């Protein structure tokens, strides 16, 4: 009896304690906002020329309880006119959409399970938010494979580290296969992705990362005589990163390359492959110079029916602090089917306010 009373009193005290502290601000989620302001000029006089708000990302992160962590990123950007609509000069205004809203486990040993809407982990750069991309735009390789915003989908992911001496992580995703422009959409479709990421420390200053990715999308057609819609993507990527251990704030180097192959069967049968390779050299405390080359059309279903776009971009970045960056990108785009190359210049101001979580390596 005594024990019971003591327990009751104790639990009451404990309750009072939680109640008091939970009223403080400390349980609010970390909130941050990234804003990307852009000035763009193309010698083609395209619609995107001039000043614009490229994107705003509002992010909230917090542990939910002892078992889960939640991340919500809401993106605001210019509404894209739908293809079916007539071409018009009218402004479409801005749209707000959930870029990522997911929950992941924090108390499971060895594995992480994630559920919600999120960037697919396919490849090396797809999962990155616009503000964290190495260049101002995603580039022609990613845009032609996954669209301008990258491949975002709803589903479940599981990841874990393999028991080997180096970093070796496997991620498996089951997704709805609902990505506009990428798949032939249907409510009975499913997409699976598998990613294997490895990283070796070649020295204290140099790392080598190598990844393999695969994606399979299938929409079985019940109608007799109509073929299934199947999309298969495979990719590989490697990245060298160098930053000296002494005076590392003044110098660094990155060389990263990604290759993606696409195969589509069904109503829009297609095949294409391309690669993106870039180098980044940090030559002073707050300055980076970068160069990127992309090439599409490395695989084809039928001759002359493939996108063979080539791009070359140089970028100069001035980074006053962790929270702001001013980047100038000049890009030459060589559309295989058009005679003249397009030249495009972009100047971007990238800022981050609030408590933004750290970025992946």
């Amino acid at each position, binding site marked *: 009896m005594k024990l019971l009373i003591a327990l009751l009193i104790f639990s009451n005290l404990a309750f009072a304690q939680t109640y008091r502290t939970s009223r403080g601000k400390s349980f609010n989620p970390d909130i941050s906002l990234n804003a990307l302001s852009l000035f763009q000029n193309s010698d083609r006089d395209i619609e995107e020329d001039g000043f614009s708000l490229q994107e705003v990302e509002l992010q909230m992160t917090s542990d939910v309880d002892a078992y889960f962590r939640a991340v919500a990123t809401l993106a605001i950007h210019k509404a894209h006119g739908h293809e079916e609509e007539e071409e018009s000069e009218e402004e479409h205004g801005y749209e707000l959409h959930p870029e990522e809203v997911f929950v992941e486990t*924090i108390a499971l040993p060895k594995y992480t399970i994630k559920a919600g809407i999120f960037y697919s982990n396919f490849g090396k750069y797809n999962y990155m938010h616009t503000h964290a991309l190495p260049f101002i735009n995603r580039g022609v390789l990613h845009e032609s494979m996954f669209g301008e915003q990258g491949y975002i989908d709803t589903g479940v992911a599981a990841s874990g*580290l393999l028991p080997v001496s180096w*970093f070796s992580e496997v991620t498996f995703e089951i997704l709805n296969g609902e990505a506009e422009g990428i798949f032939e959409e249907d409510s009975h479709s499913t997409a699976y992705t598998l990613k294997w990421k490895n990283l070796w420390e070649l020295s204290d200053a140099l*790392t080598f*990362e190598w990844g393999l990715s695969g994606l399979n999308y299938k929409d079985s057609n019940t109608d007799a005589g109509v073929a299934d819609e199947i999309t298969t993507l495979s990719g590989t990527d490697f990245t060298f990163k160098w930053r000296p251990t002494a005076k590392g704030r*003044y110098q660094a180097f990155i060389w990263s390359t990604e290759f993606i192959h696409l195969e589509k069967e069904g109503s829009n049968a297609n095949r294409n492959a391309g690669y993106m390779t870039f180098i980044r050299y940090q030559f002073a405390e707050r300055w980076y110079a970068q160069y990127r080359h992309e090439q599409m059309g490395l695989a084809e279903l039928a001759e002359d029916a493939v996108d063979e776009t080539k791009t070359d971009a140089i970028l100069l970045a001035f980074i006053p602090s962790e929270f702001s960056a001013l980047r100038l990108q000049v890009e030459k785009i060589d559309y295989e089917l058009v005679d003249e190359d397009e030249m495009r210049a972009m100047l971007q101001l990238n800022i981050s*306010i609030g408590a933004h*979580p*750290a970025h992946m390596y």
Partner: protein
Amino acid sequence: MRFLSLFLFSFSVLAKPLVMVSTTNIKSLVKEIAGSEVKVESFAKGTQDPHYLEAKPSYMIKASKADLVISIGLGLEEGWLPLIIRGARNPKIRVGESGHLALGNHIPVLEAVHTEVTRADGDVHPEGNPHFMLSPKMSLIAGEKIQAKLSELLPKKKAVFVQNFENYKKKLGALELKYSTTKLTGLKVITYHKTLTYLYDYLKINNVAILEPKPGIPPTVSHVLKVIKAAKKEGVKLALVENYFEPIVAQRVARDVKGINVVSIPVAVEGDKKIKSLLDLYEYFFKLFNDYK
């Protein structure tokens, strides 16, 4: 299968607990207290600024095997340690769990900001200055916590840890006596970043100016002129630059201020080949300050 589990079992019995720490200064103190009872490794190298470490996935592998993580806290590792711990998928080392000791929570911190602070003030740590391991006095407080935590991890070895910590205290006391550290009061210096705040506070050294106009902001011309003026007026003899920064700006000051000496200093164990332990680091500073007393 049985063979494998037997093998794994014997391995785990034989293996020493792995303690991952964020800086080499903590690593040295853990070594002093734990001796060879645990395996200890630091994420940051002695020449790296622990503030700007990159969250390399290879660190996640180490953290996944760790039995204990000891960090500085106070926001120092904010940019990388949370990623490492999450990527390690090792729930026992999460912040707040028994396998994670954030030393900063137990230190009487300096420069904690109680007023409104914004990012326009530079890289401020409202929780307080995180460089407390550079003060011998704070190393004793940190050491006490490390000793208690290690004893929790290996209860049978508690007596060893207590004894080792006593030995550390004795060695530190002898070192202070040797360099009569109480007589350094009033020595005037200028420093690049606020890394030595706790050491200055302990030795009562007068830090006349900081070369960074605000924490984490590289020196501007107008600020450097102010520093030059202050250094001249106060007759400063020593300009210290933490060795992860370039000494160029301090050398510029030295061109204008007669009799000032620019010294590029290690601020962490293994930050210089000769500095192999925390006591070596303290001795290096005691000796340096004595030379310019």
